[in-house]
């Protein structure tokens, strides 16, 4: 075997090993290469899901923590959902869990869509029947809303085409608005400031395919992004203050 051939063989072996390693890492269920949740937190969540409620009492803290926990180990989605169905969980806390799960799925989506889908399917199981949907309304609403926010940001919908924004000037009250898109891109004045400029992403129902269907008993999740421009306009729209 020539030296050149040996080199090629060795390179191929290493490449294959690298691919296998990355594949196995993916199947291990993590979407965070670095900066994930600590092993201690992961173990705590895994061994005692109810502690998620006591440890992260507020909606905001819960959403943030669950995002990182589940993105670090997507199998924890099941624990989170179990905790959500436990006794004494407030509507606010359920919403926080839903938003956290959505954001974990958002992290996974670009690098490992299968894991994102796993999270979505786990949540979709909560919407199996109308009764389930009603019981889990807060979690499901926050989940679907959270998926949409990211899609907008990721696609840059807010930039330029942003729902007009900013300082949205109310008619006759505050003058012209100053729409700024995600990332601070100034998009030009937009009068009222709460409209969308040309080219902005639609918000109609047909865009909501990535969300979990809670209007009938068929649960659908697919990878089409939701283009809900809500997140990008919080800072931008009704700015008559």
């Amino acid at each position, binding site marked *: 075997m020539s030296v050149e051939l040996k080199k090629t063989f060795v390179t191929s072996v290493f490449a294959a090993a690298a691919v296998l390693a990355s594949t196995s890492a993916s199947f291990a269920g993590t979407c965070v290469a670095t900066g994930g949740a600590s092993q201690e937190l992961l173990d705590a969540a895994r061994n005692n899901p109810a502690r998620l409620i006591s440890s992260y009492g507020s909606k905001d803290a819960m959403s943030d923590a669950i995002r990182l926990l589940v993105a670090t180990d997507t199998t924890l989605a099941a624990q989170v959902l179990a905790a959500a169905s436990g006794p004494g969980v407030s509507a606010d806390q359920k919403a926080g869990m839903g938003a956290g799960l959505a*954001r974990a799925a958002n992290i996974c989506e670009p690098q490992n869509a299968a894991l994102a889908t796993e999270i979505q399917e786990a949540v979709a199981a909560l919407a199996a029947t109308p009764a389930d949907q009603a019981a889990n309304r807060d979690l499901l609403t926050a989940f*679907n809303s959270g998926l949409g926010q990211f899609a907008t940001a990721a696609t840059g919908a807010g930039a330029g085409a942003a729902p007009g924004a900013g300082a949205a000037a*109310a008619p006759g009250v505050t003058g*012209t608005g100053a729409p700024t898109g995600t990332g601070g891109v100034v998009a030009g004045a937009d009068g009222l400031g709460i409209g969308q400029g040309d080219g902005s992403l639609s918000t109609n129902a047909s865009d909501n395919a990535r969300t979990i269907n809670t209007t009938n008993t068929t649960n659908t999740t697919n990878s089409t992004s939701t283009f809900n421009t809500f997140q990008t306009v919080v800072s931008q729209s*009704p*700015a008559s203050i």
Partner: protein
Amino acid sequence: MWNGARLAFLPLAEYLAIGAIAVLGLGLAVSELQISARFADVSLVAERIEYGKPVSANSVAIIAADADEIGELGVCRSDIVLAGAKTVLQRIGNYDEATNYPAWWSALTAAKTYLGRALACLPGDGNLWLRYAAVDSTIAEGPEKAAKLMAISAMHSPADESDLLARVYFWNRFRPETVAAGRDVARKDVILAVQIATPADVRKAFPTVSPALKPFVIEAAKDISAQRRRALLRAGFDPDNL
């Protein structure tokens, strides 16, 4: 004798009282001036934002950090509080979840904290309630809570055109479950907007009418005059063809 002593004493007491009031007034004036001076940059940047003048993301970040102190210090002057609100909300737009989650999240939660304090100062401001609803729902949209916050906004400013249109804008973006939870308020807002708001602004509030709001728009369209319908159509909003 007693009367004479009283007469002699009273002018001095009056002088002292007037002096004390003057010192107090001066103290308050100085304090107000100090607050104005301390947050002058916040007011200036808020004004630039409001009038659509460009403000760099960096400036917004710096000034919004200043504005955070408005709440922390418990300053309760509407001009300062509202200017601060504008900058902390603008700061959210500097970031997005996809590319800089920590900064985005920090801006979002700081805005929520700020607005919570602002509402303690100005509980009757419908626009602040609306913004609080929007920020809170971005963190995690809970139908009942969002609907309740929107209802409080509507209660405080039921027909202020800017607040009304802003509410419609957000109703249009909320999940159907949230619209269902706030059905009565959403319906009233939509009908009022379609019937009386400036047509061009109605179009902007409804870039695309969400399925959850369509029934309300259809209902509103039944009662508008031919003239109003023409005005809406001219503005690009066709309530009969959603």
